[in-house]
């Protein structure tokens, strides 16, 4: 009896088995995005599909954020069990991942400015024209083959259409679901009828994970058979003859209204006035911004601690170490200062596993930022150390101080005063650079903004809000630095006593 009770208790305490699925919420509607009327919730037809698959498999679906063009790399690294986010069925995808049976099919849609007489209206007419699309997409490949001047966007889909509206591009070619949710709700755009290619989406798995592939394929078949998938697509306004044919459904027309599409139109079709947004919408997103700010701050603070410790060692090694150590320190500084942080972060997160070192996203972010900023810190401290006259070290030496004592009690306190202002600058810069950790699945402050701006179609107002949050985080540190600087400079700027 006791054993049974214990087992029951253990079962209750054990975490529910999860289906970790990777997606990019910044991609926007109708795939995976934050509900514009309640941004604390993730919605989208793929969110519902992941939930339905999880249910069939007896697992709780948990979304993991990752940049869309990095999803397959993150999948291979093991950050989630499958990628479900408009992954196109294409040969290059099959080379790096296993794909499920297609779960969705859609034509590519060409969108132009309404009334633009010079707009391209055929595939042939796209040659030499500026056309916006998503990087690494089927549409991009079609445009490249057609000889168009392709402009790709790392952000959300909203930006692609915004540029078209502003006349920066001549047209947009994207998958039909995107065109339905972004172009068709705006009277400034016109979707051009015609054949521009098509695309099919599938779930992606790690190479070798045939077992999960088979399970998901079986689950998809079951969802098709029991009508779940059809109902889902109808609700999102995505039921089309192409989808019906893909799922083997003879009934090409939808039977129910596209509730979610209508809800989306009502929410974002026309942006409310700024002050109304301030009153009604922004209070809703504030918790998300604070959560993102907390992560940005945690990553930045820990990275700065690492950068300071390593930077001190590098500066000391460079200035006072034997030649071998000094040269090694210079090499480190030049390498990390002279190469982009993004590359270093990518190497730490995606490259180190090849050497058997697999860091969590948070640790990888802290390590990459810390290693990079250590180079800058080392140079700050070197400048500080060199500002202390050599005679000070000699005076300490003749008084009998060891080298370490001389540095600690005589040189360092004087050098710190010189190093604090550039250190403060570096911390503020690091805080902003911490936005790069979004490529390793962390949703920090900037990523929170870009996903919200994309799903709420509000770039300016939310941009001002996120800028304010960054300022509020950075200002106390700038103030603290001033206090510390004054403390270290208290012996200066005094008249004769």
């Amino acid at each position: 009896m006791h054993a049974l009770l214990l087992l029951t208790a253990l079962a209750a305490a054990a975490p529910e088995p999860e289906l970790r699925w990777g997606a990019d919420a910044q991609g926007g509607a109708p795939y995976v995005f934050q509900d514009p009327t309640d941004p604390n919730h993730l919605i989208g037809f793929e969110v519902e599909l992941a939930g339905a698959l999880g249910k069939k498999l007896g697992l709780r679906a948990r979304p993991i954020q990752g940049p869309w063009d990095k999803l397959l790399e993150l999948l291979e690294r093991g950050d989630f069990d499958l990628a479900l986010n408009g992954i196109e069925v294409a040969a290059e995808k099959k080379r790096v991942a296993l794909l499920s049976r297609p779960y969705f099919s859609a034509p590519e849609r060409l969108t132009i400015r309404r009334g633009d007489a010079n707009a391209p209206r055929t595939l042939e007419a796209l040659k030499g024209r500026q056309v916006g699309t998503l990087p690494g997409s089927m549409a991009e490949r079609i445009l490249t083959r057609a000889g168009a001047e392709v402009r790709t966007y790392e952000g959300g889909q909203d930006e692609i259409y915004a540029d078209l509206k502003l006349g920066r591009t001549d047209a947009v070619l994207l998958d039909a679901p995107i065109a339905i949710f972004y172009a068709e709700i705006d009277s400034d755009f016109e979707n051009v009828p015609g054949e521009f290619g098509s695309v099919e989406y599938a779930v992606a798995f790690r190479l070798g994970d045939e077992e999960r592939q088979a399970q998901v394929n079986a689950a998809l078949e079951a969802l098709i058979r029991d009508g779940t998938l059809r109902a889902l697509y109808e609700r999102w306004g995505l039921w089309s003859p192409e989808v019906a044919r893909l799922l083997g459904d003879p009934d090409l027309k939808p039977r129910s209204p596209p509730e979610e599409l209508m809800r989306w139109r009502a929410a974002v079709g026309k942006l409310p006035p700024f002050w109304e947004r301030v009153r009604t919408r922004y209070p809703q997103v504030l918790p998300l911004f604070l959560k993102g700010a907390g992560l940005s701050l945690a990553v930045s603070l820990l990275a700065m601690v690492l950068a300071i410790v390593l930077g001190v060692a590098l500066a000391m090694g460079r200035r006072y170490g034997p030649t071998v150590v000094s040269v090694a320190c210079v090499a480190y500084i030049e390498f990390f200062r002279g190469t982009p942080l993004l590359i270093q972060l990518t190497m730490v997160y995606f490259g180190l596993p090849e050497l058997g070192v697999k860091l969590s996203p948070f640790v990888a972010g802290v390590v990459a930022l810390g290693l990079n900023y250590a180079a800058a810190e080392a140079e700050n401290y070197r400048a500080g150390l060199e500002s202390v006259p050599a005679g000070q070290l000699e005076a300490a030496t003749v008084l009998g101080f060891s080298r370490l004592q001389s540095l600690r009690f005589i040189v360092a306190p004087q050098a710190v005063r010189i190093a604090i202002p550039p250190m403060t600058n570096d911390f503020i810069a690091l805080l902003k650079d911490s936005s790069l950790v979004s490529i390793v699945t962390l949703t920090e402050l900037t990523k929170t903004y870009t996903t919200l701006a994309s799903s709420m179609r509000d770039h300016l107002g939310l941009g001002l809000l996120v800028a304010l949050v960054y300022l509020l985080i950075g200002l106390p540190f700038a103030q603290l630095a001033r206090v510390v600087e004054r403390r270290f400079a208290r012996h200066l700027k005094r008249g004769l006593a």
Partner: protein
Amino acid sequence: MTLKVTGVVRHYPGNPEPTLKELSFDLPEGTLTALLGKSGAGKSTLLRCVMGLEPFEKGTIEIDGVVIRGTTESTAAERHLALARARERLGLVFQNFELFPHLSVIDNCTLALIKVKRQPEAAAKAKAREVLVQLGLEHRIDVWPEQLSGGQKQRVAIARALCMEPRVLLYDEPTSALDPSLKAEVLQTLQRVDATGVTQVVVTHDIFLAKGMEYVCVLDHGQVIEAGPPAQVLGAPSHESTRELLKHWQ
């Protein structure tokens, strides 16, 4: 306590001539000695070699029985050990004082006592106060170096060195950074320290200061060319270079 320098050679790379050429001299305990010479004669280099701030190639420097040998005659570890032992008996007052600007006057004097000699803070402060009072700095104990006049800075530098109770105290051009009107004050300070029995060596270009010493040593081209009481060396110099030097100063 004696300072004995025997056959010291210091040759800077790139210079055709050594700066110190087999330099030798022997100072008796408790003397106040001026080290004179033209610029480049090797005076400051000698001080730096004695203090271990610069290596020398050959010869020995003996401080109260502790022998420091040249770099070609001893290992780095031996030199390091000998230097550490010698520094316990040596002090140096720098030309531009090298007070620690981030520490108050009292902290300038106590830090080495606490961190190097491991004295309790209270004892170190008592000692520093005593020395500062001796040098007439009782009103400047808690101020920052930046708040001191040039003469006061120098006395603090001397006090800082004296707190470590050196047996030999070296000075590098003690009047060069000061107003000429302060020369008498400097000499008075040196004589006050002399009364405590500390052997003092003062590198100087200042004839007034040299005249107030007990002993004068003249260096030329890295060698001692003349030595003796000031009345003898400065009053009736026997070497042509000394005469030229004095003529130039007068």
